Each structure stands twice: as structure tokens, then as C-alpha cells.
């Protein structure tokens, strides 16, 4: 079989086309949002919001409303409460997060016990199912990507300022609480639309791993985001082709590739210079250029 045929064969199946489009969009979204999460040391948040969204999924099933709506409501609710707790109490972010997501998850489990016959559907959602991405899911992911692109175009620099130095930003009159909530809401949105496709655990990998690999090679925010997106996309494509030809579970294969990228990145990088003086002369992150 020639190369073209090798590359195009999966696309004769609608579910493979949707898988490629869906996961690629998620990879782009995750690259952007994941960079912020990783830099703030909130890797845990993706997992937490995914579990909180589980409570929303159950609520949506019981109420007979679209699953995405329920998951999104719980995801955004967690983001909102996290912001409120962060400002009104002295609790650390990870503490508030642990309380909120386990609470929401427990609600989900309780709700499920009322209607046990839905268990099958929900476990599929927790683990995710790349090959079951439907047209509606693609629309949700597209919507999330478009909204994120719009917000980033408008407020990217403000979001960076608030993440880097919240105290300085607030003192200078930036609406810090609103911007932090906005960022957390984007995280919630990303996690919820990615949930169906890759599941609660794998979504964390797509958010964090490419951004972490990119951070080994770039110390410029914009380049780091670009590199994270690129790594996420290549992991997606390599993973999905591998999964197609070797019949491995697609979500897990994509994440395995992303993890291998990180391991390779760690092995191949030049050692970071120790002192500021040597940093002037060498080192991957300190090359001088004017943007």
C-alpha cells in the first residue's frame, strides 16, 4: 500500500473523519488553555472539573436535558465557586477544588443510584469514546473553539497579566476576579466538550502533557502555546493512525504518544544553563530576537 493510501484509508469511515476533526480541535483548544493551567500549577483542575461535570451529566440524564448542558452547568458552577472561595476564604485553590469536585461527583453517584439503568452510558462518558464522536459533539467543540479564539483575541494579554501577577494586576485596576473566572470558565468549557471524546482522565493529558513538553523548549508564552498546539496535533494524528492500523484504543493511544513526546523532549533537550551569565551565550530559551 502506498503512502497516500495509507494516510487516506481511515477517512472512508465517517466515524474516523469525526474522530480526526474532533480530537484535532480539542488538541488545539487544549494547547492554548493547557498552557495557562500548567503555568499556574493547576494541572489537577482538568481532572476535577471533569469529575464535577459527571455530576452534571447525571443531572442532565435525570432531567432529560442535553448532556452537554448539564455537564457545562456543573463545570462552570465549579469554576465560579472556586473563584468565590478563592476570594472569600484563605483556602488554597487545590483544597477548594478537592471539596467542590468530590461533592459534585458524589451528587452524580447519588443521582445514578436513583436510575441505575443509565450506568452503561455514563461509564462510556467517563472513559470517553473517540470513535463515537457525533456531529453534535463536533458542533459543541467548534463552538468552544470559536468562543475561546474570540476571548483570547480580545483579552489574551490581560489573562497573562492576571495569571502572572494577580496582585499587581488588581492594583492597576484590572478586573482580576472577572478575568480569573473567565479563564476558569474556558477551562471548564474545554474539559466538558472534550469529555465525550477522550474521557475524564485523558483530557488532563491533552491539557497538560503537550504544554509541559513545549515548556522544555520555549520560554516565550506565545511560542510555548504554539508549540503545545503543534505537539497536541501531532500526538493526535500519530495516535489515531496507530490506533486505526493496530486496533488499539484511540484515546489511550493518543495520550501514549503525547507522553512519549514528553519523554523524548526531556531526553533531547540541551541542558538549561545554570547561571544568568552563561544564559546570555547559550541555551534554547534565551536566543535573542525581537518579536
Amino acid at each position, binding site marked *: 500500500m502506498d503512502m497516500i493510501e495509507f494516510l487516506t484509508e481511515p477517512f472512508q469511515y465517517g466515524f474516523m473523519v469525526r474522530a480526526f476533526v474532533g480530537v484535532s480541535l480539542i488538541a488545539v483548544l487544549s494547547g492554548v488553555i493547557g498552557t495557562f493551567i500548567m*503555568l499556574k500549577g493547576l494541572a489537577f483542575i482538568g481532572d476535577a472539573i471533569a469529575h464535577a461535570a459527571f455530576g452534571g451529566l447525571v443531572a442532565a440524564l435525570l432531567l432529560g436535558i442535553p448532556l452537554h448542558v448539564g455537564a457545562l452547568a456543573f463545570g462552570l458552577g465549579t469554576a465560579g465557586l472556586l473563584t468565590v472561595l478563592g476570594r472569600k476564604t484563605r483556602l488554597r485553590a487545590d483544597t477548594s477544588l478537592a471539596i467542590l469536585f468530590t461533592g459534585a461527583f458524589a451528587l452524580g453517584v447519588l443521582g445514578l443510584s436513583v436510575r441505575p439503568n443509565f450506568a452503561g452510558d455514563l461509564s462510556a462518558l467517563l472513559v470517553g469514546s473517540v470513535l463515537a464522536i457525533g456531529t453534535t459533539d463536533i458542533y459543541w467543540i467548534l463552538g468552544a473553539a470559536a468562543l475561546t479564539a474570540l476571548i483570547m483575541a480580545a483579552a489574551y494579554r490581560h489573562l*497573562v497579566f492576571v495569571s502572572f501577577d494577580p496582585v499587581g494586576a488588581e*492594583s*492597576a485596576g484590572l478586573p482580576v476576579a472577572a478575568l480569573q473566572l473567565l479563564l476558569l470558565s474556558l477551562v471548564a468549557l474545554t474539559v466538558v466538550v472534550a469529555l465525550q471524546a477522550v474521557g475524564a482522565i485523558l483530557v488532563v493529558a491533552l491539557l497538560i502533557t503537550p504544554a509541559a513538553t513545549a515548556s522544555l523548549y520555549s*520560554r516565550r*508564552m506565545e511560542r510555548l502555546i504554539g508549540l503545545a498546539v503543534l505537539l497536541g496535533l501531532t500526538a493526535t494524528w500519530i495516535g489515531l493512525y496507530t490506533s486505526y492500523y493496530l486496533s488499539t484504543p484511540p484515546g489511550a493511544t493518543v495520550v501514549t504518544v503525547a507522553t512519549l513526546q514528553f519523554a523524548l523532549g526531556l531526553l533531547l533537550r540541551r541542558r538549561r544553563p545554570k547561571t544568568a551569565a552563561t544564559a546570555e551565550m547559550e541555551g534554547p530559551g534565551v536566543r*535573542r530576537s525581537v518579536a
Partner: protein
Amino acid sequence: MTPCIEVKGVTVAYEDRPVLEDINWTVPCGTLAAVIGPNGGGKSTLLRTLVGRLKPIQGQVRILGQDPVRVRRRISYLPQNEEIEWRFPLRAVDVVMQGQLPHTPWWLPFGWLRARRAPGEIPGAGAPTARNGAGDCGDRRPDAHEPGHGHAHGHAHRYGDAHRHGHAHGHAHAHGHAHGHGHAHGNGRSPFDIAMEALRRVRLEEHALRPIGDLSGGQRQRVLLARALSQDAQLILLDEPATALDATAQHDLLDILQELRAEGRTVVMTTHDLNCLTDCFDTVIGIRRRVVFSGTPEETLVPATLTAVFGQHVPILTAEGRVTIIGHD
């Protein structure tokens, strides 16, 4: 003229415990002021109140004649170093450009493109005072203590040029008040150029493109000062900026602060280093929950005042007109 800072009968409490009680303090524009006092005496609380982060339960704070929250864009607060995520993949110049964001509505699509506009004018913003040139204060210091001081005059001159230039073009939106700043921000200069100019003024232009995490403590402080300049802040508040800086870095910092003062900006910093008070500061306030003392540095450095501020005897040595603290850390 409207004072830069006007604090009247202010009491601030965390929960029910008062940290500051009945504070009265007035600082004219163009002043370099030091806040001294024992740990836990309320120095940082005073700064946070001035910037509007803490609300007094009694009394009134006025910055440039207005509520601090309303003039936030004219204030720059440099928090203690550990509150900032220095690992962020930003270059020094990126951090300095952040200073222009408060003048940009975040919800406007591509709003950052508008950052090059001149910031709005605030009535009562101070004009440069004739009192002290950038070099005056430093001249009192022994030469041995002035590494790099030779730069100061040249930089002051350069700013002076920009300043006159600004007046020629910028008076259209004046409110009848003399105001010497901000015009350099207009005239179609890009945020990057404005940031580079600010970095030049804190003598860090050669480090502009380095990751912020690679800079030393003193350099990071100066990057934040450059950010304040890029914001065109009239009031700059620094919380313990000299802590963890070596003597050279402290002098560099104070040199720059004096230049900013000479431009009519007001600078307030908390400090533990009593020895530098007479060299650089115009006014000193001693805080131990209440205002224990407020006056000139020379008046501060007498045993009775120091004992009142710190609640213990602070041994001092007077020689050749200079007062040296020998027993206080």
C-alpha cells in the same frame, strides 16, 4: 494643590482586630516617602489601603483627590516578590508592556492594539516639583556608595527632552492642571517602544529580551518599576523592595526612585534599612498600629523617636553630621 496622598482618621481591621488605627498622613506630589516600623506594625497594610485593596472601616483615603479605586490606573503597587509567578515564560519587555493594559478595556476585541493611545488625564496629577533634581540627593552621599550613579544625569536629561516634547503636543486635553507625564505615551508609539523606553530608564535595556525568571532580584524590581513607568503611574508603592537586595542593587533602585520623584511622581516604600533614610527620603512615617511619628528623616533619627517607633532602644552613632544605626537589623 491637591496632595498625592491624603489619609484622614483611617482605621483598618482584619476581621475585628484593628491593624491600623486613626492614621492621618498627607503627602504632597513629588515626594519620596519611607514607611518604617516594626514587623506586624501595619506597614504593608497601609500600602494595601492606599492602593484600595483594603477598605478602611473608618476614615477616608484620597489619592490625587479621589477614591483610590477610581484612580487605580494612576497607581502602581509592587507587591513583595513572592506574590509573583516568576517562572512565567515572559521576557522582561513583555512584563513592562503589561503596564499599558490598565488603559485598555479587556473586553474590546484586539483591545491591546489600542494600548499605544495616551492614557486619560487625571485632574490633580502632579507637576514636577522644582525642589530636587535627580542628582541632588545623591550628591549628599559619599562617592564610594554610588556605583553607576553617573548614569543618572544623562537619563534625566533624556526624559526631560521627551517631557518638553510632550508639552508641545499634549496640552489639548489638559484640565487646567499642570501635568508633566504621559505625553511620551502618545504620538503613535507602539507598546513595545514605550516599554523599551521604560526599560532604558531603569537601565535594563540590554536585558529586555531575557526571560524574567533569569533576572536577579534587583533586576526584577526594576522591571516592575519600568512597568509602573509604562503605566505612567503617578503614585508608586513598593512593599519592602530593598529586602534581599545587596548594597549595589539597593543604591541602583534608590537612584531610580529619586529620578521618578524628580519628575513629580510620588514614591512610597516600606523599608527596614534606617541608614538610608537621610540620604534619599523627603519624609518618613513611623507606624506601629498608629502613627508614632511623621516628619523629616533628620527628625526621625533621634533616639526618642526610634524607641517610640520600634518599642525598643535602637543604638545610633552620630559622626560628621551623619547618623548611623548600629544595633538595628
